[in-house]
């Protein structure tokens, strides 16, 4: 199955071609600043590359149904480590990576189509698609690699593309996007450093190389052993990497800033694909994590806290994309909460549904921003449903899914997570409570966003801004994603619902070969589920709070800004804290960035220049000073020279006489 290599290779080639097209465009533009050159081709090249990759991914997907659960390509012996070990990279499509690859290429294709229209007219059109294709290639390498090393390649590769794409409009807004890109890269690098250490620890502890299958097998074989602290540490370090990539606390602050990039980028990278790679990694190594219950607990707590922290921050954002960014962080928190309780399937389920509805929301937001002439502030929108009906309709579908309104995809996936947490009992009830509160906040801020954007009075300058519906190339992907967001839930119906219609939990069955080992360690068998009555109760409860909070959020804001202003007037302190996202970013600036800068200057000036270099120069100067002193002996007077020569000779004579020579 060496055609598997084609899946990442095609977008990569597409990227190179787009890059060349960009170079040609620049050349053409040098002669004539208005020329477009061949850049228009880039969109087609990029879409073609992704489309072809999607086809190959589908082919691989169909190859792993039934008894064959995975196909692997020939390995590429990448880095020979020493005489015996080599870091190999191979392409592996199994039930997990196959599903992820479909999401990446499928959603990726839709976003490419959307972007081909959205980015029209941008001077960096071809460059944009070069980056975007490169991103997809790297993401596919991340997902499809059969080893940690290969994943790390993709891991850093997507970080790079994220950096490039966030900073795509580097000269706008006084260079802010470039700063945001840098921040994203550095934050990711903190995670990557942790990832590296985890990888090395696994290598030295298990001694089976870097292949997932070997690592999982070796880890599973150590299950129940006493001394697994080091493996747990490795798991924790790898989770540190996941935190960076998936914007979990404490490395969460880069994602909201990442919205400085073009909207399709936010949809593709910062909602649907890259940020979920942390979840992917944990599912991929589920036996390892299953062996480390303490680490799982940490993951659950981090996930729940992040979910709550981000959802609360989303409540008061004015920037349309800002709300979506915090929402994304929050939803990722849900996924980690699921992972922390061993609900691998629920996590992946939420990854997929989230990819659909969050991509939809982002693209919808992009459509709105596009229609509003690059306006992102919701306070300057309102009443747009009349101007952009298709965008409005699809946005509603996405919002409904996000807020967990019953029967939509988000409802089922989120509910499965909460149910799994509830099932754990004990201290996990606390986390469940936090999850429920987060769900309420989610419903509230989602419908606040919808109300502020599409309802109420038009708060923009009608004479200057003429909102318009986006062209079909943008709305068609929205519709497809809307449909997926609505019906996406069928792949994982709760078993009580499934029983009614005699439908199994497709995703659960599909993923079973991947999660079997982890479940075996955790539960000594397949994962249990709640009693039917409890589950019905929870479903009902979830529906109720979703509806209630959605209603609250919508009605408070549908008449414009009055509702919001009164609320903020009532709780000014809370509003202030939340709008700054609990002040985390500022705290980092004050507690880490500023002291580090100071330390750097201190080291460079005081320690290095004055201290070390000062010592070096002092040696030089002391030699000079000694020379100045000794210079007096050679004052140029011959008599003096003679004197010293004579004295020297006399001393020598004395010594020789003394020695009896």
């Amino acid at each position: 199955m060496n055609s598997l290599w084609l899946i990442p290779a095609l977008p990569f080639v597409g990227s190179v071609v787009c890059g060349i097209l960009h170079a040609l465009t620049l050349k053409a533009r040098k002669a004539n600043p208005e020329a477009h050159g061949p850049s228009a081709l880039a969109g087609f090249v990029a879409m073609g590359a992704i489309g072809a990759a999607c086809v190959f991914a589908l082919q691989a997907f169909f190859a792993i149904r039934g008894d064959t659960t995975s196909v692997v390509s020939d390995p590429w012996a990448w880095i020979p480590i020493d005489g015996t070990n080599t870091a190999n990279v191979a392409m592996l499509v199994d039930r997990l990576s196959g599903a992820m690859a479909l999401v990446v290429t499928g959603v990726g294709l839709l976003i490419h189509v959307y972007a081909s229209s959205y980015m029209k007219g941008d001077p960096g059109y071809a460059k944009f698609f070069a980056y975007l294709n490169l991103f997809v290639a790297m993401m596919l390498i991340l997902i499809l690699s059969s080893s940690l090393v290969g994943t790390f390649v993709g891991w850093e590769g997507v970080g790079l593309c994220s950096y490039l794409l966030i900073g795509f409009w580097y000269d706008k807004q006084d260079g802010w996007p470039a700063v945001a890109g840098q921040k994203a890269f550095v934050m990711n690098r903190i995670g990557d450093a942790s990832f590296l250490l985890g990888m090395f620890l696994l290598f030295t502890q298990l001694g089976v190389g870097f292949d997932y299958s070997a690592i999982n097998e070796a880890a599973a074989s150590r299950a129940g052993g006493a001394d697994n602290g080091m493996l747990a540490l490795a798991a924790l370090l790898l989770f540190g990497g996941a935190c960076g990539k998936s914007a979990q606390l404490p490395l969460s602050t880069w994602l909201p800033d990442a919205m400085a990039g073009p909207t399709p980028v936010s949809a593709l990278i910062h909602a649907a694909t890259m940020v979920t790679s942390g979840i992917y990694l944990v599912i991929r190594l589920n036996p390892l994590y299953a062996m480390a219950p303490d680490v799982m607990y940490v993951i659950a707590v981090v996930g729940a806290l992040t979910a709550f922290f981000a959802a609360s921050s989303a409540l008061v954002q004015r920037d349309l994309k800002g709300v979506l960014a915090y929402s994304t962080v929050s939803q990722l928190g849900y996924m980690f909460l699921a992972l922390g309780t061993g609900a691998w399937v629920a996590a992946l389920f939420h990854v997929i549904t989230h990819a659909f509805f969050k991509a939809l929301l982002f693209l919808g937001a992009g459509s709105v921003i596009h229609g509003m002439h690059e306006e992102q502030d919701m306070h300057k929108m309102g009443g747009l449903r009349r101007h952009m009906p298709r965008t409005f309709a699809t946005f509603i579908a996405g919002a409904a899914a996000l807020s967990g309104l019953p029967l939509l995809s988000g409802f089922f996936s989120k509910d499965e997570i909460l149910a799994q947490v509830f099932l754990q009992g004990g201290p996990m009830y606390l986390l469940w409570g936090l999850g429920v509160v987060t769900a309420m906040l989610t419903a509230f801020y989602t419908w606040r966003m919808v109300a502020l954007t599409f309802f109420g009075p038009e708060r923009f300058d009608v004479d200057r801004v003429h909102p318009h519906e986006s062209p079909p190339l943008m709305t068609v992907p929205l519709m497809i994603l809307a449909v997926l967001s609505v019906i996406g839930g069928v792949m994982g119906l709760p078993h009580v619902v499934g029983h009614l219609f005699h439908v199994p939990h497709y995703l659960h069955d599909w993923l079973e070969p991947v999660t079997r080992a982890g479940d075996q360690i955790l539960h000594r068998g397949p994962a249990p589920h709640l009693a039917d009555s409890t589950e019905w109760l929870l479903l009902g409860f979830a529906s109720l709070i979703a509806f209630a909070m959605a209603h609250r959020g919508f009605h408070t804001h549908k008449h414009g800004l009055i509702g919001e202003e009164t609320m903020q007037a009532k709780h000014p302190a809370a509003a202030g804290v939340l709008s700054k996202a609990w002040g985390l970013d500022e705290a980092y600036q004050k507690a880490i960035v500023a002291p580090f800068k100071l330390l750097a200057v201190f080291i460079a000036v005081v320690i290095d220049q004055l201290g070390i270099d000062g010592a070096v120069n002092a040696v030089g100067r002391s030699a000079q000073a000694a020379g100045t002193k000794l210079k007096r002996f050679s004052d140029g007077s011959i008599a003096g020279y003679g004197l010293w020569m004579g004295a020297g000779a006399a001393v020598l004579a004395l010594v020789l006489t003394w020695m009896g020579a």
Partner: protein
Amino acid sequence: MADLLFYLMAALATVAGVGVVVARSPVISVVSLLASFGALAVIYLLAGYQFLAAIQILVYGGAVMVLFLFTVMLLNLGDPDVTSGQTEPLFHGSRRSLIGLCTATVMGAAGLVAVLRVAWNEMPSVLAIPEGGLDPLDQLAAQMFTRYSLPFEAASVLLLATAVGVLVIAKRNRPGEKAFPSRAVAAEAAPTAPAAPQPASKPLPEPGPEPEEVLS
């Protein structure tokens, strides 16, 4: 008798040496030096080194001393007071002179101690002087032109170089003429040379005898 003569000559050489060092007028120094050289020549003769004694008289007493005397006279240094109109101190500053004196004393003492510490008794101190002296000319010449031919040639080259070098150094600078081949020195000398009045109106003789003839 010969021994007595030796001690006499030794005393003369020493006294004359001291005279060289302490004399106020360079002329007296020169004459003292001549006396010292002569005394040494006698000692050589007594010791049996006839040729050496002859050379000593010829080269030192003849050539070198005349050179010194000529220089002193040429520069009109016979009486130091006349030169500059005031008495210049003979010696360096007292500290430096003291150090110099101490150094010389230490040196001499060291030499004497060395002489005293070696057991000379076993060495023959009395030697019958043969017919041609202890440095018969035939043997000396044979050695000089065979075994020591290389130093001999080197010495002749040195003498030739000296002759040329002394010419260059002591030649009087005429205005507009470069004193030295070296650029840096000429640059420095050029402004001073014409400005400096030439007290010695008489042209100087070419210094240095033809020393080659001394050896042949």
